[in-house]
């Protein structure tokens, strides 16, 4: 096991990067979902959502 780690320790870097990218993508998905949820609340109350909120859907 230690020999394996000595040979492939550098794999920690790309794997960590992939893990962080996946984590950020998951948070971005949750942020978009929250924004959609808020827009739905505006629609239900019969009002227009602020343009900043709509613009956010293209960025988050």
């Amino acid at each position, binding site marked *: 096991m230690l020999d394996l780690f000595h040979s492939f*320790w550098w794999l*920690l870097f790309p794997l*960590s990067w992939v893990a*962080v*990218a996946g*984590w950020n993508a998951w*948070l971005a998905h949750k*942020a978009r979902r*929250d924004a959609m949820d808020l827009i739905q609340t505006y629609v239900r*109350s019969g009002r227009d959502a602020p343009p900043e909120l709509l613009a956010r859907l293209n960025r988050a």
Partner: protein
Amino acid sequence: MEDLFRSYWWLIFPLSWFVYGGFQSWLSYRANRDTLELLKSYAASGREPPPELVARLNKRWNYDLDDDRYDGPRRHRRERGWYHVVLFGVLCLGFTYAATSDLYEAGPAFLIVAFVMGALSLASLVSVLTGRGPKV
């Protein structure tokens, strides 16, 4: 186990950076969610939210909400891009020196790190010159 730590103690620093980045993203996401929750309360009660609160939506969720650099003028983003080019470039030079002089008898390991730093520097340079960068 002690030998392993003596050989790879320096891995604590880059790996801590990854953990810190993930934690910062999580905190920024929480702040963003709290803002949306507050706006939701305003919408549900039929009141207009304060413009300052709505203005917070213009910040990207995965950056520090008090940090204007990412959403500020394009010039600031370019300056930050050059900062990364220089930072990673100098780190690449340092690790190349460590690799060629076989510092701590770990030349091959330093060579890999030098490659990574060089790649990051080049990627930052391309990002600055083309005016584009990763969104995440």
